[in-house]
Structure formats: structure tokens, C-alpha cells
């Protein structure tokens, strides 16, 4: 019977209460460790088509008669359109339609950043559309520009009320602390740079809008379009079978989809709207810059007694204030914590979620601060973390937590410190640093899957989710194969189409596997139950003695051993159908992921060059479904983390607020040459309280601690306290100079003391 319950749902650290219909009793979790299919390495089922260039991305969708769109963007960081005349553009060759402010969602008459979309043109070719933009006549009223987040905070220009948090008595605890460290950290804006830019192709077929879009959330796109266009949700079909990266920036339709939908309506033709790389790096979102003024008070044994932080998120013109303060509130046991977080609304391009938004930035600050404390106390940084391990999330139990086990896995890497440091010479200094990781990743309801077994014994899982490149198809197939007892190669997963499958949640917030995986298992269990019932009747046996193993229907006494395809082969065109839904998360528990990374660096103290030589990662994300795919997530997160730590930085012209580093020669992401040795380990213990799967998400955790661990390794190697991301040569040489001066002062004091 269907039960209606109220439950909590979390995405990217944002919680909401939702109603949920729960159907059957939950399945028992599988035992710990590698099973027949789940927990064993599986190559991607869609690997060949992606590698061979056969996978059809949105960028590859070419529909007959398709028009191309170019978007006019504000040259001013803050301005109002006083007057706009599209007619000169409409008169140009190839131009078929044009939209001005207010004619599609996302085309604004007040531009709040340089690059905000205001008008759009559809033409036979992209070149014609782009040429037509120059003919659009706009009269601008230029408005006041604020680019400095600190100024915005002082003037109360905020995206919302400041978020305040306090437990215990921070002031008193700080006053009583034996050691206090205060530091200010800054992180810069970094850009997602999915290799496939944000884009959509829209086409009206009758009263139905068909949308091909590079998105992390086909249902979110469907619902947003339906709402804004005032049409029923089932009149919008959204398709995304393959997408070229998202990293958090592709969770909603964006102006490009609304523009394409409206232009398609006006012209009666399919319309593509695709951002160029430069547009992508201006208007498609970013990880916002932060300023973090942090304080830690501790006893001389390292016990944390007070943690305080003032966090400024430089949001830009729109976006949300990500939980930069989260790590400080949750990573360590500390009775007295006070944080305040401001979202500065400034005339810069809007933020969008980017792989563990807030926690990447906040962990950099907190974990550097902890190491500065460790240095002051002359305590082993890992030991300092152990001493402050949190056994509950401010009184709320964890559904599972194996952070100490992660530390245990990391110990052998941490123990390399003496050997690594011993490699130091006069110019190249070597050191080791670490940082802990905490983040969400428990997923949540609802999500659904259907399973179909055909009379050839093959299994299809249908769920309208998307695979953003993490290997979802394969992981879901593994879960279904495990539950059903069939070989992995017999299972195929159909996804990426709202018209062909039930709702599944977004591929963001490390939620795909923990959210949809349990639904897939439930759907597979449903067909398995039916198959057993069929076998029981066919062979006049009791259901309880039957099982399916490796594609064979077997009885407990071994007398029956019938290939599944033989059993269902009788049924010809009949199909056995199953369905499953995602149950709720455990009530009253914190579902979180944990980990540690230990980084070895070499630093050239004369030129400020940093080489990340080795990164050892140990993460606790519950059960690992596919060790091969899991390793790739960890490696990918670390590589991205190295990028924003050392070489990536979006720069603005301080006068106009325009992005200067929109091209990939200026915005420098890591190449294969920058790759360190990466060692990747998992605790791999199912979370016994979390769903029928016990698996948490892994997309985001690996990028969380990388920057802090690198910075801490630099301190270990050189004594320099870096306070800024990226750690450019300029910043590092400054920190090295500061460290030298400190050492000289210290030496003087020392001499004086004698």
C-alpha cells in the first residue's frame, strides 16, 4: 500500500521538506564488500560510443531547417535598455526572427553584469545571426556599478539576509583559549568550462515543445519551461542522452533554452542556441570568489574551543550564497562556533553551483587555519584532526561516518613526510600536507526506475535521468544486474528523455547514485519477484527455494538449473515489467561524506613554481558500486582541484567589469603534463541507515580538500602561509618573503631573549 510521508531532501547543501509516497517495504541491504557485479570494476557501457565519437551530444543535433541563434549581451556592467530597435537586424540576409528584452525569459532590460543577455537573433547560419547583432540599435542608460564584494557588504547590497550561526559561547571560549590564530583567506572566481558549452535545440511539434539540451536535470528543464511558457509539463519533452560536462552549471534551462523555444515558436523552425566558449566563460556561471576572516581558539593540547568565521560570498548579479561556513560548523568537534555569511550582490557574472559549492572554498580556509594552528602548537596536523574528531553533527547522529578509518588509510602516506622533506635542496623544497573533507552526498527522494525483462532474457532499465559523464549508465546496470542475478552485459540502461521513463532527480550534489541507485534496485527486485513467481508455477516449486544466479534460474536443491531466457522464452512477446522508487533518508540523521587527502609538493623558492607530485586520497562514501568509475571521479576531482589551486583564475577588468580571461589561453586548466601521481582508496563500507544500497555520492567529495592540502604541503616545505587561491607565483613569492621576514624576526627575538 502506498504510504504518504513527510521527509527531508538535500541538494548541494540546501535542505527542504518534501511529501513522499513510499510503496513497498524496503529491501534489506546487501552485505559489505564486492558482490557478484556491484563493487567490482566495470568498464563503461557507453564507453565505445563516446570514444569513437558516435555518442550524439546536443552539439551534434542537426535538425532539418534548423536556425542558429546569436545573443546580444550588455557591454555595461550595470545598465538599463532605454530604447532598442531590432528592425535593422531583421532586415539583414538570413535573419528570420529577433527577440528583445522581456520577449523571452533571461532577456532583461536591466543588465546587472557585462555580458547579461538582452536580445537574440535567429538566422539561417550562426555567422548571419552574429552579424545581425551588430545592427541592433540599443540606447543604454548606464547605472552605478559595484564590483567590490566588501563594499557591497558594507553598503548592505546583499542577495539575502546574512546567514548567522552560533553554538555555545564563542566570545567567552575565545577569551579563554590558550592559543588563538586569526587569518584571512581569499579564493578567486573559477569557471566550470564544461567542454560542451551550454546549449539547446528547440522544436515545436504541434503543441509539444521538444528540447535537446546539455543539462544535468532534464526534469528541472521540463518543469521550468512548462511553468514559464504556461503549458502543461507533459507538453515539454526534454532529451539529453549525452552531455559534455556540467560540474553544477547546467541544472536549469538558462536563457539560451527560453530564447530557442520562443524563436522556434515564432519561426516554426527548429532553433539552436549555443553559447560560444567566451560566452560560456562570462554568462554560464562560476564558482564565486570568497573572503574568509577566520579565527580559531584552542587549548595547548590542540583541543578546539572556539571557531569563528566571517564569510563573504561574492555572488555576482544573481545566484545563491553557498555554504562556505559549512566546514567550520561541521568538520570538527568544537563546542563554540560562530559564523556569519554574506552574499554580496555585485555587478559581476552570476555564480552557479560548481562541484561542492561553498565547501571547496570553506575547506581551503578552515584547513589552512588548522594547519597554522598546528604549526603554532608544534603538533602533528593529522593528530590535531584526530583529537578534534566529531562524533556527532552537533548532537545529531551520522547515518555513518568513517573519517577515522580514512585517516587510518592515509597514515602510510602521511608517514612519508620525513623522506619527502629530505629530498629538499637549496632551491627546491619538498613537503607534505593534508586536509580533511566533509560534504553532503546522501541524495534523496523521489526518483523512479522501471525494469523490463523481455523473452530473450535481456533486461532494460528505464529511468529518465541523465549521465553527465560519471558513468551512471554503468553503475545503474550493475545494480540491476546484481539484484536480478544476471550478467552485467545483459542489462542496458535507457535514460535521458522525459518522455521515455519516470522521474529521476538531477545529476548534481553527488546525488545520482544514492538517489537513483536504490530505485533501480527496487525496480529490479520487483521483476525478480515476478520471475520467481513465474518459475515457481512453471516448475511446480515453492518460490522460497528459487533464485536467479548468473542468468540461471536455480532451485535450492540444485535440481533446477534453467537459463532465464529459456524460462521467459515461453512468453514470446510478453514482457515482465517492474518498478521501483527511492525511499526516504533516515530520519534524524546526518547523511554526509568524509575523506582526507595527503599531498606532496615541490616548491622552487626562487621562482615560485609549485609542482604537485603526489596526491593520496581516502574517501568514505558508503558502498562503492563501481571501483573503476569511482577512481575516475576521485582523479578528476583532484585534477580540477589542482587547477583552481595553481593556475585557474577568472579576471575582470576593474573598470568595466568585463571578463578578461574568457579564452582558454588565458584561463588555464590543467593539462596531462600537470598530473601528479594519484593514489585512491576507499573505506567502502555501506551506510547501514541509508536506503537499500548504502551508497553515497562521490562526484564532489574529491575536489573539496585538494586546495587546502596543497597549501598545507607548501607550508610544510617552505614555512610560507599562502592565503589566496590560486597560489600564483606572485602570491607564493609574497608568502615566502613574509615567512623569511618572520624567521628573521624570530631569530632576532631569539637572540634578544638570550
Amino acid at each position, binding site marked *: 500500500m502506498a504510504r504518504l510521508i513527510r521527509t527531508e531532501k538535500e541538494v548541494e547543501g540546501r535542505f527542504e521538506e518534501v511529501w513522499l509516497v513510499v510503496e513497498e517495504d524496503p529491501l534489506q541491504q546487501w552485505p559489505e564488500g564486492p558482490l557478484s557485479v556491484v563493487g567490482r570494476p566495470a568498464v563503461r557501457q557507453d564507453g565505445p560510443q563516446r570514444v569513437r565519437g558516435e555518442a550524439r551530444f546536443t*552539439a551534434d543535433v542537426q535538425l532539418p531547417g534548423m536556425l542558429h541563434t546569436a545573443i546580444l549581451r550588455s557591454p555595461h556592467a550595470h545598465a538599463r535598455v532605454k530604447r532598442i530597435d531590432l528592425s535593422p537586424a531583421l532586415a539583414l540576409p538570413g535573419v528570420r526572427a529577433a527577440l528583445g528584452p522581456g520577449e523571452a525569459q533571461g532577456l532583461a532590460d536591466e543588465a546587472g553584469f557585462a555580458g547579461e543577455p538582452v536580445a537574440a537573433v535567429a538566422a539561417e547560419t550562426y555567422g548571419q545571426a552574429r552579424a545581425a547583432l551588430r545592427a541592433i540599435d540599443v540606447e543604454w542608460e548606464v547605472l552605478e556599478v559595484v564590483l567590490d564584494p566588501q563594499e557591497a557588504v558594507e553598503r548592505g547590497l546583499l542577495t539575502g539576509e546574512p546567514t548567522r550561526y552560533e553554538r555555545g559561547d564563542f566570545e567567552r571560549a575565545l577569551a579563554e583559549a590558550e592559543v588563538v590564530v586569526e587569518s584571512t583567506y581569499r579564493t578567486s572566481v573559477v569557471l566550470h568550462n564544461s567542454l560542451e558549452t551550454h546549449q539547446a535545440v528547440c522544436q515545436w511539434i504541434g503543441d509539444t515543445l521538444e528540447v535537446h539540451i546539455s543539462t544535468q536535470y532534464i526534469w528541472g528543464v521540463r518543469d521550468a519551461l512548462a511553468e514559464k511558457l504556461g503549458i502543461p509539463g507533459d507538453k515539454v519533452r526534454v532529451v539529453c542522452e549525452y552531455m559534455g560536462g556540467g560540474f553544477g552549471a547546467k541544472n536549469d534551462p538558462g536563457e539560451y533554452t527560453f530564447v530557442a523555444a520562443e524563436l522556434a515558436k515564432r519561426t516554426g523552425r527548429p532553433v539552436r542556441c549555443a553559447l560560444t566558449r567566451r560566452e560560456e566563460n562570462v554568462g554560464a556561471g562560476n564558482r564565486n570568489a570568497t573572503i574568509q576572516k577566520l579565527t580559531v581558539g584552542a587549548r595547548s593540547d590542540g583541543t578546539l574551543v572556539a571557531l569563528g568565521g566571517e564569510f563573504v560570498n561574492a555572488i555576482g548579479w544573481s545566484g545563491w550564497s553557498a555554504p562556505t561556513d559549512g566546514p567550520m560548523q561541521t568538520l570538527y568537534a568544537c563546542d563554540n562556533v560562530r559564523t556569519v555569511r554574506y552574499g554580496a550582490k555585485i555587478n559581476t557574472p552570476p555564480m552557479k553551483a560548481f562541484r561542492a559549492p561553498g565547501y571547496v572554498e570553506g575547506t581551503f580556509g578552515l584547513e589552512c587555519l588548522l594547519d597554522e594552528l598546528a604549526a603554532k602548537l608544534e603538533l602533528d596536523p593529522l593528530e590535531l584532526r584526530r583529537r578534534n574528531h566529531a562524533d556527532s553533527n552537533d548532537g545529531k547522529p551520522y547515518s555513518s561516518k568513517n573519517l577515522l578509518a580514512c585517516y587510518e588509510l592515509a597514515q602510510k602516506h602521511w608517514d612519508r613526510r620525513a623522506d619527502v622533506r629530505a629530498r629538499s635542496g637549496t632551491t627546491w623544497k619538498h613537503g607534505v600536507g593534508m586536509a580533511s573533507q566533509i560534504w553532503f552526498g546522501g541524495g534523496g527522494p523521489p526518483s523512479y526506475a522501471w525494469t523490463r525483462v523481455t523473452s530473450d532474457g535481456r533486461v532494460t532499465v528505464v529511468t529518465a535521468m541523465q549521465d553527465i559523464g560519471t558513468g551512471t549508465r554503468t553503475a545503474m546496470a550493475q545494480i540491476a544486474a546484481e539484484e536480478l542475478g544476471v550478467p552485467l552485459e545483459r542489462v542496458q540502461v535507457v535514460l535521458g528523455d522525459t518522455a521515455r521513463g519516470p522521474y529521476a532527480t538531477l545529476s548534481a550534489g553527488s546525488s545520482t547514485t544514492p538517489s537513483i541507485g536504490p530505485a533501480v534496485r527496487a525496480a529490479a527486485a520487483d521483476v525478480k519477484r515476478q520471475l520467481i513467481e513465474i518459475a515457481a508455477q512453471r516448475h511446480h516449486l515453492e518460490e522460497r527455494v528459487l533464485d536467479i544466479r548468473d542468468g540461471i534460474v536455480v532451485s535450492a536443491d540444485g535440481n533446477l538449473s534453467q537459463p532465464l531466457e529459456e524460462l521467459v522464452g515461453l512468453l514470446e512477446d510478453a514482457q515482465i515489467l517492474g518498478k521501483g522508487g527511492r525511499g526516504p533518508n533516515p530520519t534524524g540523521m546526518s547523511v554526509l561524506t568524509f575523506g582526507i587527502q595527503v599531498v606532496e609538493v615541490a616548491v622552487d623558492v626562487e621562482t615560485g613554481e609549485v609542482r604537485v607530485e603526489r596526491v593520496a586520497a581516502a574517501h568514505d562514501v558508503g558502498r562503492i558500486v563501481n571501483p573503476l568509475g569511482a577512481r575516475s571521479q576521485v582523479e578528476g576531482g583532484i585534477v580540477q582541484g589542482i587547477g583552481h589551486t595553481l593556475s585557474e583564475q577568472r579576471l575582470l577588468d576593474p573598470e568595466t567589469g568585463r571578463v578578461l580571461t574568457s579564452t582558454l589561453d588565458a584561463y588555464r586548466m590543467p593539462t596531462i*603534463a600537470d598530473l601528479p601521481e594519484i593514489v585512491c582508496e576507499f573505506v567502502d563500507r555501506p551506510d547501514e541507515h541509508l536506503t537499500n544500497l548504502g551508497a553515497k555520492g562521490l562526484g564532489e567529495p574529491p575536489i573539496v580538500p585538494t586546495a587546502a592540502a596543497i597549501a598545507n604541503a607548501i607550508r610544510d616545505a617552505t614555512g610560507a602561509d599562502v592565503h589566496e587561491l590560486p597560489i600564483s607565483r606572485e602570491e607564493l613569492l609574497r608568502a615566502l618573503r613574509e615567512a623569511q621576514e618572520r624567521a628573521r624576526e624570530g631569530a632576532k627575538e631569539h637572540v634578544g631573549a638570550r
Partner: protein
Amino acid sequence: MPELELTVNGEIHSVDAPTGISLAELLREELGFTGTKIACNEGHCGACTVQVDGVPTLSCITLAHSVRGAVTTIEGLRDHPLVDAFVRADAVQCGFCTPGQVVSAAALVAASPEPTVEEIRHHMAGNICRCGTYPRIEEAILNWRG
């Protein structure tokens, strides 16, 4: 529009196309070779890499009319052992850069059948992978013959 004759994956194609058209655009939009991806369209990322007479070339900043040699795209390398090596090593996440990676790697292993890690890192540095699959790509190329 000037006519142009181009050998792609061993077949000769004749097309009328404007002088400014890039090789990438021609391949994708006129000839249907959509395995070649355009990600930056200004020669910075390597997603559009094709071979011209075996030499890795950025097709997004190559004028189609200036091409003198035989073009090989990912469609011409679909049976190359590297494809299987990439799948085995999990050297693919979103897959948007992957065809370009394979095209570059195919030229590398043709010139150096047993490439060292240093050679791989030197010769593959022009193919950006935002998902960060580099460790897997390195492994795939090291073990390309299976």
C-alpha cells in the same frame, strides 16, 4: 562559393564552401563527421584535433580551403586499438574531448609505438580534458596494444 576537394578517411569529398569556413565546421556540418568536436573554436583546447597526413592539427582554426593533405578524423580511427584501450582504462568521462584525445594519441603511437610517460605528457598536453581523466588517458596510451 569556391569548390574544394578533400580526402577524409580515405574518401574524396567535393564541396562548395565559403573561404572562411574552418575544417572543423566543414567536417561537422557539411560532411557529417560530428565525431570531431568544437569546444573552444579558437585553437586552445584540442577537442577538434584531426590528423592531416598523420599530423595532429586543430581543425577549428584550419581553413578548409587551405588543407593540402589527407584528413583523418575519429571516424577513420574507430577500429584503432586505442579505442578499446581507452574504454578498458576508463579514459572517458563526459566524452566530449575524447575523440580529439584518440586522434592525438593515434599519431603519437604511430610515431612512437612504445611511448614513455614523458612522451605522452609532452605530446598530449594540447588536449584539455575538463573531467580530468588524464591518469586513465595515460594508462590507455601506455597499454594501447592491449
